[in-house]
């Protein structure tokens, strides 16, 4: 790695003031498993001048339950979430998602805040030494459209830019399905509105904004949630398609549903059509199949990723059946 300055922040305010001072030239580091890889490969046209370490900020790595919500500090590691009794009891989809992310070592390092803010894994974007100056680097075009796009978006590119790189997070769809809220240093954002496609960024966060807490509502009663992941390898792999669902039942029938796919679109993709297809109905194999079909009804796959449509359909079907206990 090239040289850079390194600051340990001791409070959120201090980290924010460092970001204000450095602007685009500083990056945050928490678990480090994403940012250090990016720096080692020098994938970006600019190299960060400074890293601001968030791990030294006290009080951002705890899991608690109060006022009908789980409160998870942004620095809580994925393994802490995966093994937390509170998360497993009240937000099983999130625990399962954390449990299926990367490898055990990386789960001991990577944080939930970092997991939702991580950068895209598109192989053109990630190619070493900024070989492909693509749209996400304020460059000319998306190389995946005519290139090898087997792991790219099946629901079209980003509206503003035309980038087809998918969002790679496992915990993001779980947080969207569970209707979580992301608390930052300056505001609270619904998980659903948190993700955005911008050059060098995957979220709506301002350059000097830091995620501090995740709040997951814990509805009383009959809400069931599930997370499923399809990847080439069981471990150390990013999803080809993953799916999280939360379904609330009333007299055996679906009262409310939130289904979110990820790694199929430039941001986590909420399958609203699938939700509509099951509301008010009793879940069975045929209805779940119907929901899967509805979820991919708007799919516009590229040349090499047509298989992902079938995978996404099946993921939604299985997630719905899992929530129904089948």
């Amino acid at each position, binding site marked *: *790695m*090239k*040289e*850079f*300055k*390194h*600051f*340990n*922040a*001791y409070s959120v305010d*201090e980290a924010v*003031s*460092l970001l204000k*001072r450095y602007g685009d030239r500083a990056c945050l*580091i928490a678990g*480090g*498993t994403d940012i*250090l*890889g990016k720096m*080692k*490969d020098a994938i970006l046209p600019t190299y960060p001048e*400074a*890293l601001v*370490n968030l*791990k*030294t900020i006290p009080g951002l790595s705890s899991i608690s339950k109060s006022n009908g919500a789980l409160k998870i500090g942004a620095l809580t590691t994925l*393994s802490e979430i995966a093994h937390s009794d509170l998360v497993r009891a009240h937000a099983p989809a999130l625990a399962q998602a954390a449990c299926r992310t*990367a*490898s*055990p*070592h*990386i789960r*001991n*390092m990577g944080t939930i805040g970092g997991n939702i803010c991580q950068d895209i894994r598109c192989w053109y974007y990630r190619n070493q030494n900024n070989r492909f100056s693509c749209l996400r680097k304020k460059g000319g075009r998306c190389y995946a459209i005519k290139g090898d796009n087997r792991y790219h978006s099946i629901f079209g590119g980003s509206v503003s830019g035309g980038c087809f790189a998918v969002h790679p997070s496992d915990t993001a769809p779980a947080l969207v399905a569970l209707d979580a809220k992301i608390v930052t240093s300056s505001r609270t954002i619904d998980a659903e509105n948190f993700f955005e496609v911008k050059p060098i960024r995957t979220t709506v966060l301002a350059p000097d904004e830091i995620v501090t807490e995740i709040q997951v509502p814990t509805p009383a009663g009959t809400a069931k949630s599930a997370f499923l992941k399809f990847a080439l390898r*069981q*471990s*150390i792999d990013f999803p080809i398609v993953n799916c999280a669902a939360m379904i609330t039942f009333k007299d055996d029938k679906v009262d409310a549903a939130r289904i979110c796919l990820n790694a199929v679109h430039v941001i986590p993709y909420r399958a609203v059509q699938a939700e509509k297809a099951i509301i008010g109905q009793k879940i069975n194999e045929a209805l779940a199949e119907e929901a899967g079909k509805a979820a991919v009804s708007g799919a516009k796959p590229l040349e090499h990723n047509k298989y992902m449509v079938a995978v996404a359909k099946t993921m939604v079907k299985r997630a719905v059946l899992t929530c129904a206990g089948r």
Partner: protein
Amino acid sequence: MAEKSKKYVCPYCGEEFDAAEGLKGHVFKTHKGHGLPVSEGGIKLTVNKSEYTLKVKPNWTLYYLIHDVLGLTGSKQFCDRGACGSCAMIVDGKPVLSCMMLAAECDGKVIETVEGIAADGHPLIESYVINHAMQCGYCTPGFVVTSKALLDGNSDPTEEEIIEALAGNICRCGTYPQHIIAIKETAAKLRVEKSAGKGAK
């Protein structure tokens, strides 16, 4: 030229000031109660029960510090991207990847490497040799470190738990089945040792 006139640098956060008064005000306002500033890059850490006070550069990884600077060459670097597990070390009781950790962020950490596990006479080493849980041997230290962390928290791991714990270690020679045998054997040995120790008391 303008750079030169700024010579008062905050020892906590690196912000620069033209005059001493400005720096003083900033330190009182922003860093009140933060304790004394440490020198830039100064860290204290425990490696295999020995304490070290070191000065590190911001772009050193923990792996570089342990392997190249301290000379503990047991851990191996292969992918350098956090994808293979061969550089695994135990930091504060948890197996992590030393290639994806900055040395500057390891202040106060307790680190255990494969050398420390061998020096303690851990039965895992002998089990690995007897069961030949290696071929070329490059990934072995990473496996041993990860297995040690597993056995520290679980005295009788099942086959599934072993597979799950070792899911971040890659062996291109394909020695995977031998690790399960070696770890189960070690766990049994440790349980006998433990119960014998209790009996003696």
